[in-house]
C-alpha cells in the first residue's frame, strides 16, 4: 500500500453537549471534513479516562481525539479542566513510549463550532497521514525464532532423558 492510500483510524470521544453537536452541525450544514473519526459520544470530556485513550491506541487506532466544551463552559462545571490536566499528564507519559503528540489531541468546540471542529479533524487526519500507521501491537512481535527456540529446549531435554535412561 502506498502512503497516499493510508486512511488513519481515529477514535473520537466527543462531549454530548458541545462537540458532538458541533459534529452534527458540520454534518447537517454539509461542511466537508475527513471521515476518519469513529465518534463515541460521552457525557463530558471529564468522562474520558486515560485508559480509553490507551485502549484505543493499543488496539489499532492511529490517533485519538478528545473534544469538549470550552474552558468555563462545561455543563458539569469544572470537569473539562480535569480533562485538560489528565490530557497533559497522559501526553507527558506517552512521549517516552514513542507515541507522537500529533496522534492524541484535545480540542474545544462549542455546539456552534461545526466549522472549527471540521478543521481540527482535517488537520489531525493530515498530520497522522504524514506520520503513518501506528500498528501498536506489531511492537510486541518477538525477535528471532521464538517457537524454534522453545522446541529446541523440549528436544534437548528429551535427548538428555534418553541418555539418562540408557545409563540405568
Amino acid at each position: 500500500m502506498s502512503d497516499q492510500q493510508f486512511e488513519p483510524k481515529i477514535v473520537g470521544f466527543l462531549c454530548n453537549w458541545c462537540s458532538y453537536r458541533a459534529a452534527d452541525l458540520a454534518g447537517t450544514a454539509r461542511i466537508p471534513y475527513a471521515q476518519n473519526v469513529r465518534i463515541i459520544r460521552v457525557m463530558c470530556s471529564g468522562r474520558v479516562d486515560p485508559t480509553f485513550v490507551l485502549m484505543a491506541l493499543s488496539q489499532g487506532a492511529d490517533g485519538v481525539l478528545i473534544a469538549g466544551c470550552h474552558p468555563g463552559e462545561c455543563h458539569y462545571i469544572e470537569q473539562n479542566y480535569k480533562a485538560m490536566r489528565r490530557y497533559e499528564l497522559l501526553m507527558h507519559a506517552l512521549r517516552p513510549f514513542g507515541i507522537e503528540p500529533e496522534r492524541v489531541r484535545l480540542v474545544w468546540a462549542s455546539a456552534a463550532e461545526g466549522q472549527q471542529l471540521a478543521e481540527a479533524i482535517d488537520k489531525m487526519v493530515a498530520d497522522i497521514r504524514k506520520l503513518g500507521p501506528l500498528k501498536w501491537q506489531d511492537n510486541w512481535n518477538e525477535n528471532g525464532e521464538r517457537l524454534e527456540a522453545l522446541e529446541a529446549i523440549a528436544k534437548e531435554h528429551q535427548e538428555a532423558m534418553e541418555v539418562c535412561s540408557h545409563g540405568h
Partner: protein
Amino acid sequence: MATEKGKLAIYWAASCGGCEISLLAINEKILEVDKAFDIVMWPCAADGKVHDIEKMADKSIDVCLFNGGIRTSEQEYMARLLRAKSKVLVAFGSCAGEGCIPGLGNVSNREEMFELNYLKCPGLDNPKGVVPQTETEVPEGKLHLPLFYDTLKTLDQTVEVDYFLPGCPPEADRIWDAIVAILEGKLPPAHSVIGENSTVCDSCKRVRSEKKIKSFKRTWQIIPDPEQCLLEQGLLCCGPATRAGCGALCPEVNSPCIGCYGPTDGVHDFGARLMSAVASVIDSQDPDEIRRIIEEGIPDPIGTFYRFSLAKSLLRRSRQNGHHATPATQEATL
C-alpha cells in the same frame, strides 16, 4: 502419611529472588507448609530436577507458586511445563503478575540491552566484542543458550494463570492467608487476585484535606509532615491507585507508596488509573502552567506511573524503531 500430602512447586523466572525470601518470611509456618505438601521443585531452596517434572503426569502438582516474568525462551518453556503439570498455578509477586522492575526493560529491546551490557557499559573488558549467541559450536557438539526476548511478558500473557498474589514482594501475612485459602479450598473465583480490593489510601492513617498542589516534590527535596497526606504535600504517592494489602507500609514511614501491590480489580492500566488520581490534585486551570508543573515534577513518567506494571500495561512496551518481521498471529500457535 506421605500419600496424603499434596505436591507443591515453587519456581522463579525473571525476578530478583525477593519473592523467595518473602516466602521464608512466613517463618515457622513454613513447617505447616511442609506438613501439607511435598516440595517437588524449588530451585532456590530445595532439590527437584526439570526432567523429574517432565516425567510427571499432567495436573499432578497441586499448587505451583511461580514468581518472575518471562524474558527468555527457557522461562517460557518452564512456565508452559509447570502450567501443564499443575492444578493451580499462582502468579506469585509483582514480576509474574505485572512484569515489575524486570518489565521496565520493555522501554528497550534485546539489541539495545546487549549493546549496553556487553559492549558499551563503562568498566567492561570485552575487546573482542563477544555478545551471547543462542548457539555455539564446541568440539563436543552444539551448545545452546535460551533466546532473550525483546519484550518481557507477564506469566498470564504466556500461560493461563489461576490466581495472582500481588506485591513486591508479597507480604508474609498475605502469603500465609493465600496458603490457608488454598489448603482449605476457600479460593476466590478463578483468575482473580487473592487479597483485598481496597486501596493503600484506604489503609493509610494520614489526613487528607482535599488540598491541591502547585508543584511536585522529589523525596529528597522535602521532609514531609508526618500526619498529612503525602500526595497533598507534593510527593507523588501511588496510594490512590494501589491495592491494599501491605498496611500502607511506605506512607507509614514518611515515604510515598510506589505502587508495588498493583491495581485494584477491574483496572486495565495502573498508570492510567494513577494519572487520573494525580490529575485531580494539580492546582491549575492553565494548560501552560499544568504542563510546567508536570514536566518539572515528573522527570520519569514511565518509572513513575508504570514502575511495577509496564509489561502488563495496555501498551506493554515502548515503540521499537524497526518493527520485527514475525507476524503477531504466530504468538497463539504453540
